[in-house]
């Protein structure tokens, strides 16, 4: 007989789910049995008795709960391929109970922790309920299987049994049909129960949703900080390479050309002199351009001397008067320094390009764990971060380190760019 593929797959899946349910029944009823011990030992009659019968096994159950959880974790991994992540220790210990508290406090805290409560909900309520459903389904399945194959049994069982059943050939046909239908139904049901059990276990035995989100946020924060630091480190490396390589060669070349100009001046034709002059000027321009490029990346002065020195360099180079005030008791981290430097550098470039300002003010101060950078100008205003100017890039770079960025620029000015950066104490 050929069983259709879909049907076969259905039954095969049901086989795995049935084995899973059977294993679950053994696991799930450990605690139920423990909880039942007092009820078997004696029949509680008064309210106190009942309360005691419930309360006495509880500590044992709570202490054994992680072991049982480990067993369940193994069952889900081996039989369903579902990995239930372990709980981080902090979920076991509720707030306010540290590692140093008294033992009973810690045990109490541990028992009352949300993780333990969730585990017990699984081990004592949902788990056994599903396992009971599983037991019923397995029994039903077994009965259905026997019914579906009734013709086989009729021939295997003793002859008088068959002879005593009048009209068995039609009855058995109905039983086979009903059994087959019930078998398919239980196969579906056992699968559904396995899925339900898995969902319960993931929700109650694994980390809670908040915990998973918190961990995800931690991971993301960490990896983002890593990316930002790596980008910064890369900029510094490029700066060093340019400085040690191309820049030194250019300066050396310009010196040689300058020497040629100074010493050979009289002995050269006008044409040759003009060529040397031109080459000398170009070499100097190349040095200036390279310096500008390096300054935009991560200037050496920032690494060596910090924000104050680096910013006074940009302020001095700006074609408009810039007043600079930097008040920092200590140097922030290299990444924060780089972002602050970039902010001032770009904001001043924007002022020069768009603001038509007469002067600008830059202040860098620290308030608690925040670094406050303010760039103000007395120009025409109307700067819009959404308009795709350099301001949008600034905002992104600031956001990459969890900083805040705001621009106040009414038409007619003044424009004030305010940036706050986190700055560990």
């Amino acid at each position, binding site marked *: 007989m050929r069983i259709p593929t879909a049907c076969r797959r259905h039954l095969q899946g049901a086989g795995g789910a049935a084995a899973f349910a059977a294993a679950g029944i053994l696991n799930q009823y450990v605690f139920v049995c423990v909880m039942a011990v007092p009820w078997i030992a004696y029949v509680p009659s008064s309210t106190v008795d009942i309360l005691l019968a419930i309360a006495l096994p509880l500590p044992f159950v709570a202490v054994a709960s992680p072991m049982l959880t480990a067993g369940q974790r193994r069952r889900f991994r081996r039989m369903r391929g579902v990995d239930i992540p372990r709980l981080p220790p902090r979920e076991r210990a509720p707030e306010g109970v540290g590692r140093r508290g008294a033992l009973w406090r810690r045990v109490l805290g541990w028992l009352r922790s949300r993780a333990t409560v969730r585990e017990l909900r699984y081990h004592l309520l949902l788990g056994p309920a599903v396992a009971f459903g599983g037991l019923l389904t397995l029994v039903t399945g077994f009965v259905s299987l026997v019914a579906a194959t009734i013709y086989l049994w009729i021939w295997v069982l003793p002859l008088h049994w068959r002879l005593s059943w009048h009209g068995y050939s039609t009855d058995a046909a109905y039983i086979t049909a009903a059994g087959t239908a019930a078998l398919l139904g239980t196969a579906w049901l056992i699968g559904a129960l396995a899925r339900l059990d898995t969902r319960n276990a993931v929700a109650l035995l694994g980390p809670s949703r908040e915990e998973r989100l918190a961990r995800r946020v931690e991971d993301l924060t960490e990896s983002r900080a890593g990316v930002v630091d790596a980008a910064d480190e890369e900029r510094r490396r490029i700066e060093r390479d340019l400085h040690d390589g191309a820049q*030194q060669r250019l*300066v050396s070349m310009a010196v040689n050309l300058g020497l040629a100009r100074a010493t050979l001046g009289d002995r050269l034709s006008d044409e040759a002199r003009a060529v040397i002059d031109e080459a000398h000027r170009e070499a100097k321009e190349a040095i200036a351009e390279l310096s500008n490029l390096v300054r935009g990346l991560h200037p050496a002065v920032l690494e060596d001397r910090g924000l104050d020195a680096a910013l006074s*360099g940009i302020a001095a180079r700006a074609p408009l008067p810039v007043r600079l005030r930097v008040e920092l008791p200590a140097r922030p981290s290299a990444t924060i320094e780089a972002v602050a430097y970039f902010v001032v550098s770009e904001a001043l470039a924007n002022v020069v390009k768009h603001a038509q300002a007469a002067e600008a003010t830059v202040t860098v101060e620290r308030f608690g764990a925040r670094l406050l950078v303010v760039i103000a100008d007395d120009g025409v205003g109307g700067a819009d971060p959404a308009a795709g100017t350099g301001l949008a890039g600034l905002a992104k770079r600031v956001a990459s380190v969890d900083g805040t960025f705001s621009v106040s620029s009414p038409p007619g000015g003044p424009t004030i760019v305010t940036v706050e950066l986190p700055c560990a104490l």
Partner: protein
Amino acid sequence: MRAVIAEDSVLLRIGLVKVLETAGFEVVAEVDDAEALLAAVAEHRPDIAVVDVRMPPGFTDEGVRAALVIRRQWPGVAVLLLSQYVEERYAADLLSANTDGVGYLLKQRVADVEEFIDALRRVADGGTALDPQVVSQLLVRRHSDPLDRLTRREREVLELMAGGRSNAGIAGQLVVSESAVAKHINSILAKLDLPKADADHRRVLAVLRFLGVA
């Protein structure tokens, strides 16, 4: 005149030697770190030491610290610092003791050979040479002080004074007459409330005030 060069970049050191020799200096020692520099100065007692700020082993301000030692121990040795960037505090440190025979220039100025030779000779002769960038960076720090009262032209004159130029040098640079320069300087001295004493002394005081070190 005899010179010692301390510079860790080989290319630039070769260039510097050529420039100094062209300018008529005798390069008695070329070294590449601060310790060797002090040893060389002690041994040769040169007229001038040309010193890179950033040198091994720390690559931070070894050159400045060595320069301060030289200024203290051998006041007769002029020091010309070369730096990749400007740090005003270095300039202030150097100038606070004595402005004679001190220079602070950006490395790339070496390429302007004639001007660099000018600055070299000035410093070796006991004068001062400050990079225009040092001067403009020091200006950024000024808030409301007497310097704000100066006109643009007077400020230019003061910057050039701080750079170590003579009246004639300033006049040449700004393309004005020497008497006009003298008039500007008098006006500057008056606006900075400097006491009427001998002109050279007042001139130095003006420069120091300008640099924020007095």
